């Protein structure tokens, strides 16, 4: 899968024969909808949700005038994207705070979704915001689950309340008392993973809910979940009336269509995402980024907007010309870094690029600002000839460059590889007449 693969490419193909002729015509809309349907299904959006979504989109696309400056493909992508964002909630939702402390947050979900890890992350986040959270161990089934929460708690410097394998409702009740008496303003209750169809275990959660009346009941869902996400979310929501959803493991390369399915069937906002195994790897949910990710096109929409702000016309023209002449050099690469910086930092931009979370192998460590500083040092240690013809940088030159820049051979290799990938990307853009290829 290339950097710009996904729905964008396919739509481009569908619309390649179409020149702007006023309105989108019905046949083409139908073709485009087929591609969108497949894209959504491949992203694991539930097929019922897809069906509804498609009929809504087709209606809207029919009436739409083609804006002169964009291709019909872009136009349809934009419509789909906008509708997706709207369906997923146009802005991110905050955690509720109880007017009568402590605020009680109860986690629930299937086995292996990532609840325990998320308890630690949420706790750490709230602690950083000046709160005093208490973690409560109510997973009495999985071997060593209580241990796990204790280790997690210790790592983030939070107290863990546990009462062994006694009934979770009782433990939760005691924990809230403990919190009230000891100045904790937030209580985060970890519960055992369970199947939504396990009536006894679902009743256990209802009991916990009844006893402590949580401020938030957060359904934790693995972002890789497939079609079954709707059944799971519907059942949990019916039994517990959850207040929000947390998506985990979004640092993988899943398209995450479950997010859309869950939002569609429960109407409940997605509040946080887990994006790694460390306690700091938690983010608030951005519906617009998720929409792009589901469509398999990265956050191209905001990227385009940001790019327009950050690069002035003149610079773009110059860059375009160099790309056209196949003249893109490491010097240009350096200029790109600078403009990326203006666009809000490398990592933010990289995250928005299509495929970056996916098969295009970027480690987190590849995209941090420090690495970029290294890249700059490396480029500055090169001769003019090397900067213009990076392909001549072989082993002896590499050694000299890394000595000169105080970096390692790996750093140099990394830079050259990334440069090459970028140049390929630029070539693709060039084939698309300077437009971003979607």
């Amino acid at each position, binding site marked *: 899968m290339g950097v710009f693969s996904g729905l964008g490419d396919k739509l481009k193909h569908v619309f390649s024969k179409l020149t702007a002729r006023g309105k989108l015509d019905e046949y083409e809309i139908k073709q485009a909808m087929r591609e969108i349907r497949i894209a959504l299904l491949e992203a694991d959006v539930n097929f019922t949700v897809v*069906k509804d979504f498609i009929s809504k989109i087709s209606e809207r696309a029919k009436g739409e005038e083609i804006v002169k400056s964009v291709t019909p493909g872009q136009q349809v992508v934009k419509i789909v994207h906008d509708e997706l964002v709207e369906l997923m909630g146009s802005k991110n939702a905050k955690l509720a705070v109880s007017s009568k402390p402590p605020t009680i947050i109860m986690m629930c979900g299937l*086995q292996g979704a990532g609840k325990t890890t998320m308890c630690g992350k949420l706790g750490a986040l709230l602690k950083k915001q000046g709160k005093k959270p208490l973690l409560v161990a109510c997973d009495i089934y999985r071997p060593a689950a209580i241990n796990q929460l204790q*280790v997690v708690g210790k790592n983030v410097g939070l107290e863990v309340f546990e009462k062994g394998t006694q009934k979770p409702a009782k433990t939760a009740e005691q924990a809230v008392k403990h919190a009230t008496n000891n100045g904790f303003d937030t209580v985060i209750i970890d519960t055992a993973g369970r*199947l939504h169809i396990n009536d006894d275990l679902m009743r256990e959660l209802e009991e916990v809910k009844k006893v402590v009346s949580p401020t938030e009941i957060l359904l934790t869902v693995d972002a890789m979940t497939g079609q079954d996400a709707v059944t799971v979310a519907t059942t949990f929501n019916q039994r517990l009336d959850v207040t929000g959803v947390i998506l985990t493991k979004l640092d993988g390369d899943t398209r995450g269509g479950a997010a859309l399915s869950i939002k569609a069937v429960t*109407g409940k906002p997605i509040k946080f995402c887990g994006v790694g195994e460390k306690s700091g790897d938690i983010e608030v949910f951005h519906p617009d980024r998720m929409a792009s990710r589901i469509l398999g096109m990265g956050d191209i929409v905001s990227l385009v907007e940001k790019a327009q702000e950050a690069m002035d016309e003149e610079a773009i023209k110059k860059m375009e010309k160099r790309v056209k002449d196949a003249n893109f050099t490491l010097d240009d690469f350096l200029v790109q870094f600078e403009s990326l910086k203006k666009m809000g930092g490398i990592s933010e931009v990289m995250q928005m690029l299509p495929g970056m979370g996916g098969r295009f192998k970027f480690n987190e460590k590849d995209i941090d600002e420090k690495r970029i500083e290294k890249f700059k040092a490396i480029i500055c240690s090169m001769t003019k000839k090397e900067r213009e013809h990076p392909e001549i940088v072989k082993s002896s030159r590499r050694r000299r460059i890394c000595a000169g820049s105080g970096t390692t051979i790996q750093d140099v290799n990394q830079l050259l590889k990334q440069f090459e990938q970028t140049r390929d990307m630029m070539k693709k853009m060039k084939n698309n007449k300077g437009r971003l290829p979607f």
Partner: protein
Amino acid sequence: MGIFAKIKNALKKTKDAIAYRLNKLFTGGVLNDDFYDELEMILLSADIGSETTESILDELKTQIDKKHVKKSAEVRILLKEIMHDILDFELPKEEYPLVILIAGVNGVGKTTTIGKLANNYKKAGKSVTIVAGDTFRAAASDQLTVWADRAGVRIVKQGEGSDAAAVVYDALQSAKSKNTQVTLIDTAGRLHNKVNLMEELKKIDRIIDREFPEAMRLNYIVLDATTGQNALSQVDLFNEAIDIDGIILTKLDGTAKGGVVLGIAGEQEVPVVYVGVGEGIDDLEKFDIDDFVSGIVDAE
């Protein structure tokens, strides 16, 4: 009615109607577009994925033409045959000493499966060592120790944060000196797109080859049946790293059907070997193709 309410309603109807529709589909009816639309819906809802669904349906249509099938009841049989063929692989015969490396993304059921496997081999009269190769996740080795006790087998472990490759190295020496017939190695959950974590797994894989060349090797990836199309990517990248011999499909006791393995079997030729059907020590079964296919195609 708002869009949420509408979708919710539609879903409920779909669920209620699915058994009814399946039966209606295969008992009467003509083989028209509606028929194929219904079939498509059934396959998609099992996570078979649009691409694989399409190729299954294409094959079905071809065979329907070729065999002049007119009745939808016969179509059910044909469809099952096609799916059966995709999933049918010959599995290697196990020899001892045997080393099984268990890998997969986070939370799929690796550790639990090791407990179940240990129990199976123990019951079959084999000597078993399990290796706590997850040195990363909090309390992972405590969890595995509970399983070792339940199964009544020995476990080799070191403290949290120690080097996983070193644990495996030591464990192999110990397994060899004790003449262990089956060595089961647990590993930390890792997302397949994390290059450095996959490198660590490769290293473990190489160490086993190097330190225990006389042993038969099996590398299994554990997949959660609830997972959608991302499972394709998981198998793809784990396979690239450590040559996967088979899949253990867990959590089939839920409502997810695990149909994504059809795409995996078709594209990547990796067979399903076991299925997990619960959290108990006996909840591991040999993969039965007919049962599995029936779970997707037959009404309950």
